[in-house]
């Protein structure tokens, strides 16, 4: 593999430097490096980040290839600056066996655009009744470390306790979709002023907060670590903050859309805003931003949830929940966190690469941008401004809430172990 010299990039927004890649590795970082024999990429002061890591992606394969495949999903990830994604288990069949997780893992390797870490289901068929073969999934070629019934909550306290205990044997992690099922029967949006006016079933904040409360206590009780998926309420933030103050091993993520959008948008009845957990209030959004800034929330995760057009081009009640997010995540974070002064780019690297990699126990991802490290890199033109046009998405699905919205920032280059997967904003 040839050498690549990235010239004049601000590493984590520091002073402009040159970064030399040789093969799969960063070999030098410094001023005025020799370009001999290297392909030169003029960064012109763009920001260089470690390749982004997503703990929460739905790739839909196997089973719903009309929405997304591992190939199209990893292409979308590369366009968004990601070099590693965790593929959630709610596929058809469910990724609850070594066979299915290995299939997803191999498809990821073959795609070549992004590492794919399969997430194993906690329970058989995501039914919440019987533990899946967590050990077999860990021992498989996929080497699964993260387990989740995402899309559904592991609501049985005993099953949750057993899962938390069991994965300690191989340093596994249970990632919980916190949703008390009885409190959210028929729920279609955040319960509050807007749901009352629109006559849509309410998803109360307490349905999330009560499960998080239980699970941090369970994790502390059994001495395990637990990860809370897509926090959406100010109350959830307070519970996680309290648990961390006790020294418990709790981590949490927030999605870009929960950092920007509110339930007021549902007044349009446009299903593009239908997502689980639902869009909350302005006060929740502000609390989530603050918590991401102060580290209470560890990382940003996309919850990229592709759906075909027909599943969204319908009435609200019939529409599928979820929105795509891989290709817009960094722009939304720049808009909501960097341009508001809540995070600098070094902290963005922490929340979108270093910490999620650490939580997922990845060794070759989320590494510093320095000599000797794997060349997983993302180059960002933060001065760019443009309207989101889903027609150009690499994802197979287009269900974005940002169509036509102006967002800042653009990933110009992505490198996966020294190979450019995105060049000048386009797939290589």
């Amino acid at each position, binding site marked *: 593999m040839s050498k690549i010299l990235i010239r004049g990039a601000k590493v984590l927004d520091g002073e402009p430097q040159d970064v030399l890649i040789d093969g799969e590795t960063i070999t030098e970082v410094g001023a005025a490096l020799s370009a001999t024999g290297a392909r030169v990429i003029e960064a012109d002061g763009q920001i260089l980040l470690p390749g982004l890591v997503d703990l929460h992606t739905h790739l839909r394969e196997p089973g719903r290839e009309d929405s997304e495949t591992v190939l199209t999903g990893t292409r979308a990830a590369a366009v968004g600056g990601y070099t590693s994604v965790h593929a959630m288990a709610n596929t058809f069949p469910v990724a609850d066996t070594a066979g299915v997780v290995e299939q997803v893992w191999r498809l990821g390797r073959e795609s070549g655009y992004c590492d794919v870490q399969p997430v194993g289901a906690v329970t058989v068929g995501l039914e919440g009744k019987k533990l899946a073969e967590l050990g077999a999934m860990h021992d498989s070629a996929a080497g699964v470390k993260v387990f989740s019934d995402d899309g559904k909550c592991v609501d049985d306290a005993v099953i949750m306790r057993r899962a938390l205990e069991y994965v300690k044997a191989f340093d596994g992690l249970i990632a919980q979709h916190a949703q008390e099922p009885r409190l959210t029967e028929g729920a*279609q949006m955040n*319960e*509050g*002023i*807007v*749901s*009352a*006016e*629109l*006559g*849509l*079933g*309410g998803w*109360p904040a307490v349905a999330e907060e009560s499960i998080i409360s239980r699970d941090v206590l369970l994790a502390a009780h059994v001495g395990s670590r637990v990860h809370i998926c897509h926090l959406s309420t100010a109350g959830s933030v307070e519970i996680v903050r309290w648990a961390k103050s006790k020294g418990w091993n709790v981590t949490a993520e927030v999605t870009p859309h929960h950092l920007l959008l509110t339930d007021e948008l549902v007044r*349009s*009845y446009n299903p593009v805003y239908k997502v689980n957990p639902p869009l909350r209030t302005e006060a929740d959004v502000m609390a989530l931003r603050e918590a991401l800034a102060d580290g209470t929330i560890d990382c940003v995760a996309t919850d990229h949830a592709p759906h075909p057009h*027909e599943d969204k*081009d*319908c*009435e*609200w*009640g*019939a529409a599928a929940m979820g929105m795509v997010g891989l290709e817009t995540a960094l722009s939304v974070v720049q808009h909501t966190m960097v341009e508001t002064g809540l995070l600098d780019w070094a902290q963005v690297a922490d929340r979108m690469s270093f910490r999620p990699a650490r939580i997922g126990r990845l060794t070759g991802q989320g590494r510093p941008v320095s000599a000797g490290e794997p060349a997983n890199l993302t180059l960002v033109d933060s001065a760019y401004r443009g309207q989101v046009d889903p027609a150009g998405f690499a994802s197979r699905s287009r269900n974005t809430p940002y169509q036509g919205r102006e967002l800042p920032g653009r990933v110009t280059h992505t490198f996966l172990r020294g190979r450019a997967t995105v060049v000048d904003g386009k797939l290589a």
Partner: protein
Amino acid sequence: MKRHLISAADLTRDDAVLILDTAEEMARLADRPIKKLPTLRGRTIVNLFFEDSTRTRISFEAAAKRLSADVISFSAKGSSVSKGESLKDTALTLEAMGADAVVIRHHDSGAPHRLATSGWIGGSVVNAGDGTHEHPTQALLDAFTMRRHLGQGTGSDLAGRRVTIVGDILHSRVARSNVHLLSALGADVTLVAPPTLVPIGVGHWPCEVSYDLDSVLAKSDAVMMLRVQRERMNAAFFPTEREYARRYGLDGERMARMPEHAIVMHPGPMNRGMEITADVADSPRCTAVEQVTNGVSIRMAVFYLLLGGAEPAVSEPAAPALTRTEESS
């Protein structure tokens, strides 16, 4: 008025008074030997019902027919919808058949809004009840009934009148529409229900809330009893039917505490013995049957204003045929 009637919240005071006044003109038709106007001759109105509701469907059908429109009734049961056809494809079919207006009843809140704003259909959309959201023509016929009993006649609103709505507010599209409309017409609305059946966020609605029916009866000009669905009991909204009837049901004793001029209303169908006793339901103060009659006049007025035009609805001796306008006033 706008091109569609989706929500009572979209109606200004003047819009609402115009509809009520037009309905008064339409009501006069009932006294004629031939209860029919040529106003919407050649126009096609589709009743698109995804949810069973015989009385509402018949009311819309009668209203359209009295205005000489061609009426197509489409029930989701036994249709292509039950075979999995989407609302969008159904709408495109109706559009291809040249529907001038679609009256839609749907189990999902927001479905009429989606139909009207998605570009699937070009005609007017009338919400005949969507999920637990709204039922604007029911609110209009309720307001029409109140104005006849309590108001000052044509041109007037309901300023200063006190209306109490009792029952399952949480799941009631009738209550939501009534709160918006009655507020626009100047009435003071009080909602009465057990706390489990009051929506979170109701504090932002233009009304008062009480958990005590007895405390508001004496100052009510109209008491509207809502139907309580018996399946709500399984979801623990209240302990027993008996307890609900005792605390929130309207019986003769409670009715006697209402002012003499006050009326009892019910959108129907009634659970006699649950939210209303038989003696109250059958009393001359109960307007439930009259509301059904008024529903036809209101729906005629809505069709006329959406599809007809700005000419007088009923002229003597015969009404002219009117041309369609996109924005009727």
